[in-house]
């Protein structure tokens, strides 16, 4: 009984020990698939659904994960190992499973302006051969680049066309043209980049503004630039009826000299006066009406004073300028003389 009990106790203790340190051998219906390069195991066994429902779900998942991890680690131990600085290291094989990429695939480069245009017009790229025949050297040479065929930069003589200035340096002209083409190409490249990034491309007219609503001055500037952006530099551009001339157009004020030609200055002023004179209307309506009213007044006045001719002696209505000033402020002729008499 005692011996039996001792064996039992030992067996129980052993069992407890085994329970605590779970065995490294795990039994599975189907073998797992391993990809040790990625430290990856794939369990194809169907999970025990009954047990999953009965047992605590967390515990079930934990034990399943432990078992599978144990199998993965067993597999790693099968690999050749070595000891590096007191640490045992296994050399993993190449991964076999292809994993999806972490980041989304890059978008295709947006087409350049030319590519868009070419697509619109149906222009297709034609492949040209790399080598072309060079007649001068009698050999096949590259079409472009170093030692190219038919190299026009290496010409020692350029025929001057009939239409151009004979003193012009044709070599310099060619170099300049090349440089300009390069610069233009670079500009277009940058523009394409800017377009692709949706940055406003700086150009003439409105400068790129940080705000959506440009200010009044900015708009004014844009209008001015647009107006002079014609073939005749805005010379024949129409103006709105009350539009003011643009200010600060970069034109410097120019004045006549202080002591210049006095006779031309005088002539200029007389011309201005002539123009001003000619612009005056021939018939000043208010003036005409006033004149008419005055005449009527005079007529009625003379009728009234037919009898009293004595008082008319001052009545001299000849002109507006005369020193006589027959004209008086008040309608009654008789008032003025009386006033004068009072004064003197």
């Amino acid at each position: 009984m005692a011996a039996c009990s001792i064996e039992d106790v030992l067996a129980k203790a052993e069992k407890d020990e085994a329970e605590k340190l779970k065995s490294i051998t795990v039994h599975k219906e189907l073998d797992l698939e391993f990809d040790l390069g990625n430290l990856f195991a794939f369990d194809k066994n169907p999970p025990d659904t009954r047990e999953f429902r009965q047992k605590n779900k967390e515990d079930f998942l934990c034990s399943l994960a432990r078992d599978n991890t144990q199998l993965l680690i067993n597999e790693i131990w099968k690999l050749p190992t070595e000891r590096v600085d007191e640490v045992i290291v296994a050399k993993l094989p190449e991964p076999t499973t292809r994993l999806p990429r972490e980041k989304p695939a890059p978008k295709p480069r947006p087409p350049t302006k030319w590519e868009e245009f070419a697509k619109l017009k149906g222009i297709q790229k034609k492949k040209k051969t790399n080598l072309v025949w060079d007649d001068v050297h009698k050999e096949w040479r590259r079409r472009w680049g170093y030692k190219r065929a038919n190299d026009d930069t290496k010409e020692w003589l350029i025929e001057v066309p009939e239409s151009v200035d004979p003193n012009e340096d044709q070599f310099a002209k060619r170099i300049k043209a090349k440089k300009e083409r390069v610069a233009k190409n670079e500009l277009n490249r940058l523009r394409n980049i800017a377009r692709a990034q949706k940055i406003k491309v700086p150009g003439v007219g409105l400068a790129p503004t940080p705000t959506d609503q440009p200010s009044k001055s900015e708009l004014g500037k844009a209008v001015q630039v647009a107006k002079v952006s014609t073939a005749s530099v805005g010379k024949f551009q129409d103006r709105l009826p009350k539009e003011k001339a643009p200010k600060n157009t970069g034109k410097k004020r120019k004045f006549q000299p202080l002591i210049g030609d006095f006779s031309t200055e005088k002539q200029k002023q007389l011309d201005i006066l002539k123009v001003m004179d000619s612009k005056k209307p021939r018939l000043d309506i208010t003036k005409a009406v006033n004149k008419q009213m005055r005449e009527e007044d005079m007529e009625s006045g003379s009728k009234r004073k037919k009898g009293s001719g004595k008082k008319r002696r001052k009545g001299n209505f000849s002109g507006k300028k005369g020193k006589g000033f027959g004209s008086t402020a008040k309608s009654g002729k008789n008032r003025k003389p009386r006033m004068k008499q009072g004064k003197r």
Partner: protein
Amino acid sequence: MRPLTDDETKTMFEKLSKYIGENIKLLVDRPDGTYCFRLHNDRVYYISEKILKLATNISREKLVSVGTCFGKFTKTQKFRLHITALDYLAPYAKFKVWVKPGAEQSFLYGNHVLKSGLGRITENTAQYQGVVVYSMADVPLGFGVAAKSTQECRRVDPMSIVVFHQADIGEYIRSEDTLT
């Protein structure tokens, strides 16, 4: 100092012509010598050629006045006549107003001319016509703008304004420090 530009000349002539009409020609084209208009510190000076040449010896900052100041250009490029121009406006004036001796002082203090102070007025004066104001003894006192036409002047009541004051010779004392 510099000559006037065409625009400035035109603005000034338009203002002058309100007072002396086409008689500006007599100012520009004088038989007794060459006279010209020059701009200095926004003011227009009427100078004889001789004086102008002498004035060139004086630096711009130091030059206060030369010749006769006709007026000045405002910052909006309008032209304002100054009382100093009266000497040239009075002999050529086309429309004149005489004020009674009692009203002289009021005018010289910078007030408008009322109907009660009106001695005589040139016949045919239109409303808002530039006029030169004289005393009854034919001494030019200043200039202004007719508030009423001659016809209307006859009918209005004595306290209504007939000439708006613009400049008078009292300014020689009142604004002595700014007149040049």
